[in-house]
């Protein structure tokens, strides 16, 4: 079953059209990689799915679990199960990761009509996830994204993903600026989360990340459209020959 269906999506920032009729279907339980050169619209795509208000959808539709995703607000999309791992995670001074995730989870439970969060259970669950990804208790007490290295930030983005258990995870250039160890953590996070009902969309410049997360399908995106799709070999071919032949 399709988890996400994007049909003929056109998106503008200001007067400039960035996505120019993009169509993409992501089945449940699959990992898709989207590769493309700078400025091809990869980050725009991930932001539009997540509901970043900077981008304006001028045409087309996005269905998530059969629902019209574009009619939902950003937080509603998140609570329906859309997660975006940020390329540049945003600082929130004075708010600890623990507080932040507690707020996020209690909003989600409220949205889904579930019973309120039990604080003891919350801490337990958070610590289990944190341990698995090598995040210390001390890090959880520090302010969200303040004063962390690039690698630590991505590790903590991965933790948030693992903790919130979304159905659809977008990782927007999570590999940029990461050393091998940090890449491995991201790969490990995705690895433990790979399930029948959960899908991933990896946005990346390089084939490198795909050494740690094996994709089911690779798409090449050029100038606001998907121009080629294939298996992992496609990524290797691009790595070798560049994007020139698709332009």
């Amino acid at each position, binding site marked *: 079953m399709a988890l996400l269906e994007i049909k003929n999506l056109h998106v503008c920032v200001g007067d400039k059209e960035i996505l120019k009729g993009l169509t993409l279907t992501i089945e449940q339980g699959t990992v898709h990689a989207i590769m493309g050169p700078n400025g091809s619209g990869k980050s725009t795509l991930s932001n539009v799915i997540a509901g970043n208000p900077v981008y304006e959808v001028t045409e087309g539709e996005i269905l998530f679990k059969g629902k019209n995703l574009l009619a939902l607000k950003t*937080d509603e999309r998140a609570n329906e199960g859309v997660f975006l791992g940020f390329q540049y995670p*945003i600082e929130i001074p004075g708010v600890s990761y623990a*507080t932040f995730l507690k707020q996020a989870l209690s909003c989600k439970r409220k949205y889904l009509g579930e019973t309120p969060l039990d604080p003891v259970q919350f801490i337990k669950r958070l610590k289990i996830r944190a341990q698995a990804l090598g995040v210390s208790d001390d890090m959880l007490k520090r*302010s969200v994204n303040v004063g962390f290295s690039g690698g630590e930030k991505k590790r903590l983005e991965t933790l948030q993903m693992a903790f919130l258990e979304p159905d659809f995870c977008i990782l927007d250039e999570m590999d940029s600026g990461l050393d091998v160890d940090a890449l491995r953590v991201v790969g490990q996070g995705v690895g433990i989360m790979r399930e029948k009902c959960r899908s991933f969309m990896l946005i990346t410049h390089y084939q490198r990340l795909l050494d740690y997360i094996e994709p089911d399908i690779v798409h090449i995106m050029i100038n606001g459209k998907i121009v080629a799709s294939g298996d992992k070999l496609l990524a290797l071919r691009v790595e070798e020959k560049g994007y020139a032949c698709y332009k």
Partner: protein
Amino acid sequence: MAQKEIENIIDASYKYGFETDVETETAPKGLSEEVIRFISTEKKEPKWLLDFRLKAYNHWLSLKEPQWAKIKYPPIDYQSLYYYTVPKKKKNLKSLDEVDPEILKTYEKLGIPLQEQKALAGVVAVDAVFDSVSVATTYQKHLAEKGIIFCSMSEAVQNHPELIKKYLGSVVPYTDNFFACLNSAVFSDGSFVFIPKSVKCPMELSSYFRINARHSGQFERTLIIAEEGSYVSYLEGCTAPQRDENQLHAAVVEIVVLKNAEVKYSTVQNWYPGDKNGVGGIYNFVTKRGLCHDYAKLSWTQVETGSAITWKYPSCVLLGDHSVGEFYSVALTNNYQQADTGTKMLHLGKNTRSTIVSKGISAGYSNQTYRGLVKMSKNALNGRNFSRCDSLLIGNKCGAHTIPVLINENKTAQVEHEATTSRISEEQLFYCEQRGVNPEDAVSLIVNGFCKEVMQQLPMEFAIEAGKLIGISLEGSIG
């Protein structure tokens, strides 16, 4: 769009805006020697206190309302106010059972327990001031066992005149400023605290001020005396009904911290701020000051979310050597609120230290100013001050201003000042919302994070309440 959302979230809904229907007795409208005599007679005051009031009144007549603050309001007609309003009651209440049940209900609605057995398991003693008088003080007996006096100012005048005579006006003289002078002439009630030598007060002491009557001002006066080596933590809360008129509140707080003593004074000020168009709300002109002797410490913590106008500079006079002053402040203004607030740290003794942390959040069309004075006098050998003033702007129609004055007359003293101004960014909101947090909660989360350092200074029960209050005050600033 996100910016607009933020603006809509800050539409404050004021849940303390109800009115209590009680019969009241008032002094004649307006201000005159006759009215002051009336108040003094009603309260059966000794002559020296009446003289104090009259001296203050005559001095006040020679004063002009100060104009230096960055606030705007139509002229206040001091003759159209009632200076003394009390709920009608039987003479001499013997127990809480005799307090008008309507008033008890009011405090219950406000979440302030006046029945001791219902109070927070004995951690907070409360003095409740309703319009011009104190209606109840809890746990007095329990505290008296340790020699602690916690009662209304009126009771203190009757029962401990020697202390009042010695200390009233000793930190804030009636000549201090226009509003303090007015207060000295007409103050009606307030709280009195006395902690004897070497006693650590075993519970938080708390006053709860409520303005109820129409066209009435509230002029309470608080006096705290911490004797040598003693400690007390004191909390103050305030609310008022929602009305379309502006009401005047001009209080004075005086604190005497003797050698080696420590006083922690926390305020959560939530007077009615006016509606979203700036109609109504309390004019809050308050003078708060403490005098620290050798090795004494005074710490002010304030969370200011209410009032149409706030004019307030809780200050420390660091007279004694090695004394310490602290000021931690969160001021949140929304809609058309105006706040001009800050502190004064006057370093007179040697090796005195002070810390100022001020967090201002402006939303809507509001304006706020941090105004601070740090003065190292000639004798302030090795004095140290550190100040930080951070402003957070929500939306693009509000204003934040910082006016720090630093005077250093001693070469060995050091004064440091840091300031930042920032804005809740769309990126921060998007990040929170992407994690499933709705815009209202996201703003509240970000603002609470911004104020964390100050909120941590509040006693636990208060900190949680204050955190929620900030969320409520921000309602409608996004949406």
